[in-house]
């Protein structure tokens, strides 16, 4: 049994290891950005790679992206208007044309009004999300750790030392 659980424990530890409030907030902010942007294009893939390259909490990022993806559809009208405005702005035509003629760029779907608009919205939301979520993570991480320790499954999977790590953060 321990032989089976150990790799899972190690994996989960690794995923949740970046558990400082800043890393959690960064994961949250990136999750918002990735969640807002439509997924069927290269921008979403690139953002995912960026997230993976950052020292952010991937679990929080994944969970946030998942939740935001569900509500992102409601932002489509706004994204469409922003994207259309940008893509039709005369001053930017040369830039878009240049980008459009570059290899790989067509895969990003940046010429789609919603893709570009949602990217802009996501980028705008990154910093506020980071700034607003960081104190919240700092405040509630300890409480969450204490709460999580109560569950035998948490202890079993993550190990007591991990929950102690959460507690030691503050």
């Amino acid at each position, binding site marked *: 049994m321990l032989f089976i659980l150990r790799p899972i424990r190690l994996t989960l530890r*690794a995923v949740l290891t970046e558990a400082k409030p800043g890393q959690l907030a960064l994961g949250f902010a990136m999750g918002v950005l990735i969640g807002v942007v439509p997924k069927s294009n290269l921008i979403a893939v690139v953002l995912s790679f960026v997230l993976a390259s950052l020292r952010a909490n991937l679990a929080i990022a994944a969970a946030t992206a998942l939740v935001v993806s569900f509500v992102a559809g409601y932002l489509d009208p706004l994204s469409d208007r922003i994207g259309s405005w940008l893509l039709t702005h005369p001053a930017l035509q040369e830039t878009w044309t240049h980008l459009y003629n570059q290899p790989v760029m067509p895969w990003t779907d940046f010429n789609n009004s919603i893709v570009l608009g949602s990217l802009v919205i996501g980028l705008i939301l990154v910093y506020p999300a980071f700034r607003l979520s960081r104190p919240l993570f700092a405040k509630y991480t300890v409480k969450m750790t204490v709460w999580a320790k109560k569950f035998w499954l948490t202890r079993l999977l993550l190990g007591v030392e991990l929950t102690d790590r959460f507690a030691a953060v503050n």
Partner: protein
Amino acid sequence: MRWGYLIPRFILVALLWGFMAFGFDPLVRYSAIQAVQSITGAKADIDSLETAFFPPTARVHHVALASADRPGTNLVEFDDLTFRVAGDALLRRCYVVEEARLTGVRFGTPRSDDGQLPWEPESEEESGPMVPPWLQDKLKNIGHEWLEEFTQQAKAQIDPNRLETYRVGNEVYAKWDGRFREIQTTIETKKAQLEELQRQIRTAKEGEPIDRVQKYLTAAQNADILIRDSRTFLTQLQASVPQEVKQDFARLDQAQKNDRENIEESIRMLKPDARRITESLLGEEMYLQLDKLLSWAELARSYVSAVKAPPEPERGRGTDFEFPILNPTPRMLFRKMLLDGELLVGNVPTPFRGILTDVSSDPKLHGRPSLLQATTGGQTPVEFLMRHDATTEVAVTDLAARFTDLTEHALAAGRENGDRLTASLQNLKWNAEITMQEGQVTGQIDVSSDFGQPVFQTTSPYATALAGLTQDTLQSIKTVNATVRINGPALHPHVEMTSDLGQKLVAGFETAFAANLPQMKQQAIAMVSAYANERRQDLSAKLGGRYGELLGDHEKLMKSLDDARTLAMNLRSGHVDPNEVYRTVSQTGLLSEKDQQKADKYMGTVNQVLGGAKDPDAAIQQALPVLKKKLFR
């Protein structure tokens, strides 16, 4: 660098690699199956699909697309499809296939299952009928009864019912029948009036002498009127009937003359319809070939259109803005695809090879029309060329096909047990050119063939000699050429077929007629003459017999009337000689049998009395025994 940072990244990379190594191809395969199934409406089987990124290539093994219309049968099946996508174009999101190879293509192969989907795929357009309306109309109108109609027509040309002689003869016969009935009715009326006169004379014997005289006077007046009417009637009858009969006989003679003239013309004009013959013998085969070509053209157009307008992604949100491209390339372009496989030509699997070039999602941008060239091997080689030019505003599809069919095709017109013409075509050379443009279709199919083994059998005795002669002349036909021309809307085009076969057959019939004409003419004229004579005899007999009878009746009636009038006149003038009265009355037949007996007895008595007056002694001697008996009883 801490392991805590690296391990998750390694895990992500591993997951990504795992997906690309093991999940990408199955995902593409699944997507391809779903896309194809949504198009065909039946199961699509793809055994495996392999992709590679450096260089970007794909290989698809054994694909079988089931037919939605024919359960258990594949629409198309192929062994392998390999293609290489141009890398630089792919970086710009353009799928340019430099060269593809499709091998082992087979059509209509059997499946182990029925190939039907458990659900009905959503279809935007209702599937059209299997047989297009124009073809249905054409096949429905192809009639093999022309031959039977023709032999019937030959028979009808010499049918007595169609002859003027027959019509006039019947008309005259019916007319005189009516006239005789009218005369008979008139005579019957006069007889009734005579009977009334007799009744008046009988009643005149009763009552006072003065009354009797008055009644006899009235009867005499009535008798005068009746005699006058009857004489007028008789005069008219004797004056008009012979003249009218003469005219009717003249009409009958003229009709007979007209018939003789017309029969020759009718027989000369008698020939079958070349167009109907052509349609009957070649129509079905040629129309089906035309439909097949149109289906191919439509299929090819629809495939090209499918490439031109790939299905929209499920989440097609927002607006895509297009920007000028320095080196524009169509989103999808098949520069060259090599094909090989097997086609069913006349139900014989026949190998074929083909090249498909320049199939593009944006033909205007690409600037070159799509071309499909294919050739088959085997005994009946087919050369097929299709050119779809969508580089202009209006797409034009040209299709040309040429093949030689060495198998023998049996031709037949007519019923098995009726009039029937059979022959065979060998070595058929088909040549078709069709152009489709904006729902309009124009083109033609030409076929030339060797013609042989004509056999014409008939059950009609009128056409037996004709059939033999026709068959002899048809033996001289060696080749047949036919053309089907089509133009107009693709769904309801005007299709017209011409062939020298029809003309040649008509010429054969005409030759046979020319040879058979004197015999037919003689037969027909003999029939007309016989019929006319028969009518004339009938009429003569009828006129001679009944007219004589009617005149006899009338004469008798007149005699009776004359007697009655004499009697009445004598009574009126006062010169009444009882002997004469009784004699006249007795001889006229005006009296009934009983009255006649009484009259005879009375006349006997009177004669006795008058005789006695001339010799009183003899009378007394003769009367004495009676007087003694009465006095001394």
